[in-house]
């Protein structure tokens, strides 16, 4: 932060910075961390006078397991996990807490975060200037390390793409072709939760809180940078000038404005003295200029300083929406005075907690999973729908994201089980081979002692191998089900999607009996009750009710080859809304 401080009255800034910080520290310190979920629930439940009359009860263990597994690991639980969890006689809250810890520690959690961050930052844009593999590798490493959100933000907003080692970070800029309008808008939307696009040409006509100077303040960080194409390699990266200021004119009343870089209402960042037109690499033909003082490099720093409340509120709202199905501010990138959070104190609490915990997203998601608000049943009380939805008095439906949908479908049909078995076997074989090679090098060729026993493949190794195998299928689902654009909590289904589910070859293939997959398993069962149980456990992660069992039994009586009839049953359950949504 030294550059930031140098440019302001240090004393004043320190005071402004410490004040909210102290209050927050005390508030958090006074209440032990374990009660953070209950603080959340207290604020949720106090917000509505007759909350309890609208509130749905806490969901069943089965509902919880499916929900939390999808939210934290992008797939549904395996049949074995589901059965074990349902059988576990430990107190419900204890085993729920245990499963949250387990899931957060699993390699699949990193996969989930990788998908989420990709969606959040790149909004389903295609890869143009930065290879997708490179970007995914960077996201993966960040997710595995549980990189704090502020650190990730600083990395992404500082990089110019000039260094091959860190180039992936610059994808945010480079795959937006560094179009200044797009980049300015997306920086403010994605990192601050405000959509300033209309404030580009005039103060926002409908949103009085969005000022033209806000848009241009963000733009001023970026305005000196430009997309540079290397004449030989044709590789694109960012160059930057050491001069140039942002001025603007209102399209309404022609008033003129001028601004240095600034984040919304925070003070302007004045360039350090004697940096004007000072370069590390001077601009010239086919040369990527690098200034001594980069305004762009200040953006991530300025964004993540403690006094920028918008930064923490934005990410708190976005992560809340991931878990709860609806942002405290909706749309997620339209927070302003006239569109306040539904629960203002709660959003502040969440933002401050994230800030206090150094933007530890893994911790944050785990805490949310412990709240009553998260654990409510999605079965709505009659006549309570509207009010319950708005007040988190009921578990909201969350459409499966394309990646979740792919993994859940592969898990339910048993296709994934086969991939896992194959991955384990080939990793074990590879390890054995490596160990034998190592052993033969060390020992004399004729020594009879066995080579060092191969170490079994780690869970992360298996997960990586599985991920690689299923990547094309995940991509198919992304193509079919991803909508263009960023994080939203709305849902739209299309006819081509329904046709893909109904007639597409992929699902039909997975529903053919093979190995130990779903259809192979149920085909071997005699009793309709066992069939119903197997289908429901594997597809919907719960036991069938009595009437559902009957429904299965009746269906099994229908004419046709048994395996076909069972396939129809599995298909219907797989396409059911109960499967399509995380509920």
């Amino acid at each position: 932060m030294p550059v930031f401080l140098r440019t302001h009255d240090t004393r004043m800034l320190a005071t402004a910075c410490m004040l909210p910080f102290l209050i927050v520290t005390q508030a958090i310190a006074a209440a032990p961390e374990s009660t953070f979920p209950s603080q959340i629930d207290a604020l949720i439940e106090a917000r509505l006078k007759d909350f309890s009359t609208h509130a749905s009860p806490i969901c069943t263990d089965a509902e919880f397991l499916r929900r939390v597994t999808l939210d934290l690991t992008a797939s549904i639980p395996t049949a074995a996990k589901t059965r074990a969890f349902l059988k576990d006689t430990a107190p419900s809250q204890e085993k729920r807490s245990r499963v949250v810890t387990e899931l957060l520690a699993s390699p699949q959690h990193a996969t989930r975060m990788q998908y989420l961050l990709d969606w959040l930052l790149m909004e389903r844009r295609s890869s143009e200037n930065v290879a997708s593999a490179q970007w995914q590798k960077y996201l993966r490493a960040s997710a595995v390390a549980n990189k704090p959100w502020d650190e990730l933000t600083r990395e992404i907003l500082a990089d110019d793409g000039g260094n091959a080692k860190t180039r992936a970070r610059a994808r945010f800029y480079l795959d937006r072709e560094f179009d200044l309008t797009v980049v300015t808008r997306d920086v403010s939307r994605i990192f601050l939760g405000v959509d300033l696009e209309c404030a580009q040409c005039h103060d926002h006509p409908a949103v009085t809180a969005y000022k033209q100077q806000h848009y241009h303040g963000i733009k001023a960080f970026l305005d000196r940078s430009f997309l540079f194409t290397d004449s030989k390699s044709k590789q694109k990266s960012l160059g930057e000038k050491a001069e140039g200021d942002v001025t603007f004119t209102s399209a309404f009343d022609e008033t003129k404005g001028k601004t240095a870089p600034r984040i919304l209402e925070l003070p302007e960042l004045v360039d350090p003295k004697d940096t004007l037109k000072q370069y590390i690499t001077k601009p010239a033909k086919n040369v990527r200029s690098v200034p001594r003082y980069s305004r762009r490099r200040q953006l991530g720093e300025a964004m993540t300083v403690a006094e920028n409340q918008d930064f923490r509120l934005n990410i708190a709202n976005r992560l809340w929406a991931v878990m709860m199905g609806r942002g405290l501010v909706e749309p997620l990138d339209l927070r302003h005075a006239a569109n306040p959070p539904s629960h203002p104190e709660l959003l502040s609490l969440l933002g401050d907690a994230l800030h206090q915990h150094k933007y530890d997203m893994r911790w944050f998601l785990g805490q949310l999973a412990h709240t009553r608000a998260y654990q409510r049943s999605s079965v709505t009380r009659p006549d309570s729908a509207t009010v319950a939805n708005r007040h988190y008095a009921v578990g909201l439906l969350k459409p499966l994201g394309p990646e979740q949908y792919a993994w859940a479908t592969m898990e339910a049909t048993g296709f994934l089980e086969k991939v896992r078995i194959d991955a384990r076997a080939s990793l074990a074989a590879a390890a054995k081979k490596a160990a034998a090679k190592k052993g033969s090098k060390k020992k004399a060729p004729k020594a009879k002692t066995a080579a060092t026993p191969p170490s079994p493949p780690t869970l992360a190794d298996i997960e990586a191998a599985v991920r690689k195998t299923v990547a094309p299928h995940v991509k198919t689902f992304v193509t079919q089900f991803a909508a263009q654009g960023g994080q939203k909590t709305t849902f739209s289904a299309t006819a081509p999607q329904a046709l893909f589910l109904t007639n597409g070859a992929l699902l039909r293939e997975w529903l053919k009996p093979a190995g130990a997959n779903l259809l192979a398993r149920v085909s071997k069962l005699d009793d309709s009750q066992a069939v119903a149980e197997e289908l429901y456990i594997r597809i919907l992660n719960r036991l069938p009710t009595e009437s559902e069992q009957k429904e299965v039994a009746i269906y099994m009586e229908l004419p046709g080859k048994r395996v076909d009839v069972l396939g129809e049953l599995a298909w219907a359950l797989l396409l059911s809304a109960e499967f399509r949504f995380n509920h």
Partner: protein
Amino acid sequence: MRRDHGCRRADHEFSRRGFLATGAAVGVAGLASPAVSKQLRKGQKRVLQIYLQGGVSQLESWDPKPGTRYGGPFRAIPTSVPGMHICELLPHTAQRMHLLSIVRGINLKTNSHHDGRLFMEMGRRSGSFPYVGSIAAKHLTPANAPLPGYLHITTRGLTDNTNAFLDARHAQLKLAGPKVPDNLIRPDALTVQAARRSGELLKRLNRRFSGRGGQKAFTDSYNASFEMAEKLMARRDLFEGKPDPKDLQRYGSHPFGRNCLLARTLLENGATVVKVTHHGYDTHAENFNFHLEQLGEFDNTFCMLLDDLHQSGLLENTLVMVMSEFGRTPKINVRYGRDHWGTAWSIAVGGHGLVPGAIVGATNKEGTEVSEREVDGGHLFHTYLQALGLDSTANHDLGGRTVPIGDPTRSPIKELLA
């Protein structure tokens, strides 16, 4: 003249010309399937949108300026409307201008394909709003319609969020020309009986799940997607049948010809909004040669479609627009091209609810700016919807939040409304 006036009695909706056409002209050029007369009686309003993708040159089409500095090599020719001239590249269309009107004073204040296209579709310069087709589909598609409401025939795939905040059933459904859409055909291994009964089971499961509560918009949208898929599957014949050789000869056997034939079939069979995209007008180089070729294809094909709709009486109920994302610069560049130009350009419209044979707005002598009745995507948007009898000044009701349907700072082109 105005067909709506809040009066929706069936006898008003049933047009005399339509009756005569179906009654008397049976057998003309592959028309008059039983479906046509049935649809006619219903008087369902429709939209035909022809999108000349890339930006058609107004100077080589609706607003020629022969003999001026930027006029280019082509002449202007008289049309079936006395005093109205259009470019000689549209000889067939010229003979049918009494069915169409021209808007010549469009200024979008953008030269971007993306922004221009969205402005022309959403009636808003920016933001996320439903396309005019999506709104028309929502309000005009009967509940028991045999086809999804909004169909777009195009050979390229841009992913557009056409329904914005409206329900997904009003989203545009893309068809890649007269071929069977992906996954439309039931797998061989699945018998009709199996498909039917498992489909019924699925419906039962979904009804039960909807009954538990949860956001209704979500479960409705999910269920609706299967209903639309079923409708398409039931009408796979529309995509499979070989076109009549006579029709093919009239329309042309090129993709645009085949796509327009499909458009006619879809309109005759109960589609509400059909959009056909004719690609390839972005003529930064060789503007004149390309327009000669492109508009030659457009002119003949479009006129055959227009004739068929006119003769079957469908035109009475169908709003027709021939639009683009912008026009092309008067200034001719060094490659004999014209560049992007949203500043002063034209479109043609006609059919239901519009005055035919009119010219609204004008550009100056050299076509460098609008000189009379300047309008933009917002005005056109109001005009389209009001021509269809829809109140464009009303609000979308989003459950607790309202959004004006048309931009409140814009109004319809009143002189164009019948």
